[in-house]
């Protein structure tokens, strides 16, 4: 693998869902993702922004190999998904991890934290024995600022922010390269959000992680992302660096999205004022 090559490339990705239509009527398709292409360089953060239904989460699911694309190619580390079979395909599950929005729904309530963190290691053969896996789990907890006593506890004993840290620790447990962050802070309070964002930034620095950030929160995008793709109705309508998107949005939709967000950022306030006049 060469240094200049992006870790992940997406080419002409499409996902159409067949809609229910009356018998004998021609089939109607919902174009959830419609001809989307982008690259994510190693160690970078790409943000997909857009409203619900714009297809950003669907892309996330396809990248995680949890949803079969209708057509198009996903190339991870130089090898298209389609060319990977058997063990090689399974290895993707280790390389690519995900953190979901709702830490109340994404953790298994019947597993204690030890099980949650070691399950993935067991599947992917990380750690020689249970003791070693447990040591790794404790180390992961330390990384996300939780104590080793958390190992014996269950998700319901933790606050929302702590649960999201456990979800992040679980993602890290199989030593991934690439993490899909699907609205990881939208369910959290402001003061907890800042803790989780700091953690994500630090982990990216320490482990050279590559992030795909799916969100509608443009303040978070401005803080964390390197590049931004703005999505509307399954298509990428605009892309650029954070500064390009925020300072010189070209598309009307991007401007509308920017102006819709009540924000304290003075630059945004200015934009807001402009859009009213």
């Amino acid at each position: 693998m060469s240094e200049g090559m992006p870790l992940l490339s997406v080419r002409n990705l499409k996902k159409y869902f067949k809609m229910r239509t009356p018998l004998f009527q021609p089939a109607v398709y919902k174009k959830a993702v419609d001809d989307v292409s982008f690259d994510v360089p190693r160690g970078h953060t790409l943000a997909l922004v857009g409203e619900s239904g714009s297809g950003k989460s669907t892309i996330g699911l396809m990248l995680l190999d949890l949803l079969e694309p209708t057509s198009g190619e996903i190339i991870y580390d130089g090898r298209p998904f389609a060319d990977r079979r058997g063990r090689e395909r399974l290895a993707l599950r280790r390389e690519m991890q995900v953190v979901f929005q709702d830490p109340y729904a994404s953790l298994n309530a019947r597993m204690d934290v030890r099980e949650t963190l070691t399950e993935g290691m067991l599947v992917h053969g990380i750690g020689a024995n249970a003791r070693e896996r447990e040591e790794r789990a404790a180390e992961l907890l330390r990384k996300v600022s939780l104590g080793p006593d958390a190992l014996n506890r269950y998700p319901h004993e933790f606050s929302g922010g702590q649960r999201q840290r456990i979800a992040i620790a679980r993602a890290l447990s199989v030593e991934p390269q690439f993490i899909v962050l699907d609205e990881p802070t939208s369910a959290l309070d402001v003061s907890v959000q800042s803790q989780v964002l700091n953690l994500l930034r630090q982990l990216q620095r320490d482990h050279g992680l590559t992030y795909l950030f799916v969100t509608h929160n443009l303040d978070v995008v401005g803080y964390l992302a390197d590049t931004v793709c703005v999505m509307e109705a399954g298509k990428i309508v605009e892309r650029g660096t954070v500064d390009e998107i925020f300072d010189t949005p070209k598309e009307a939709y991007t401007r509308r999205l920017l102006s819709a967000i009540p924000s304290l950022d003075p630059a945004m306030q200015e934009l807001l004022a402009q859009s009213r006049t």
Partner: protein
Amino acid sequence: MAQPLLQVMDLCTYFHTPYGVARAVDGVSFTVNPGETVGIVGESGCGKSMTALSILQLVPEPAGYIAGGRILFEGSDLLDLSWSQMRNLRGKDIAMIFQEPMTSLNAVFTVGWQMKEIMQVHGTAEGEEAYKRAVELLDHVRIPNAAQIMRQYPHELSGGMRQRVMIAMALANKPKLLIADEPTTALDVTVQAQILELMRDLQAEMGMAILLITHDLGIVAKMASQVVVMYAGQVVENAPSRVLYRNPQHPYTRGLFASLPSRNQRGHDLHTLEGTVPQATNWPPACRFEPRCAYRWGSCAKVMPRAIETEPGHIARCHLYDANIADRPEGATEGRNGTEPAAVQAGSPVRSVEAPS
């Protein structure tokens, strides 16, 4: 301004729990003037929603009860009203909208049926007239095809449409006060912007006051003229919104502003508030923010801070501004921009807290 529309004085709402009494709302006071928008901000569990429910006396019983205080609405205390008098008031003089419209609309009746019901119950309109008013109201909240929506069920509508129906219902009897609890949290950003704009326009037109409860500092900045910041069941700061955003004074408010992510903070760690919110059954004995405060010193753990008027109309509950606290450290003065109160206690985590730029 003549008489305030709503005056909440020293309100206490407690809950019996297996772990003791949870003082969810503990001595909250604020005022809403006619036609004004007041925002209550705070994080989960600070008591902001319970404050709203207490005003309408919808606190879940028997676990919860109003333990003290007064709620003056147009000069008379709502806590003295009988159950049926209170029932006549809800949805008429004071209306409320909630975060998730699907759970507050009745799934088995049409929108029209529910719209008409609220007018019939309060005797403001009947039959054909109620129907006509309902269609008008739906038009008013910018629902296209109002007549058709009247025949539909809540599940057939989108989240934004449902919230519009809720607003239309709330406005049906021309309330003097609208309580909105996280009205846009469940909605998309562009829909949120539309709903907020709609609320502002309707307010200008109908002259009602709005009590807006939210965790989103951006929404409050946009909507409210007066902001009440709550933490751990208490009001920690209360100021006109322009003043608050320019010059936040309570360490908690400052911490909140500083922890907001934005493009200006790129490449830097965000400010974090150390520790977690304490349990409502076990508030810290003196200042409730003391264990997490970067400015704390000896008295903070011993004496409950008073609400101090630091400048006209600006109230902060913090010893930093209390001249009567004997052992105030040197340099702890009014924290205007530039002259930060210094945290001089040895061993306390000293952090610079910046006001939002």
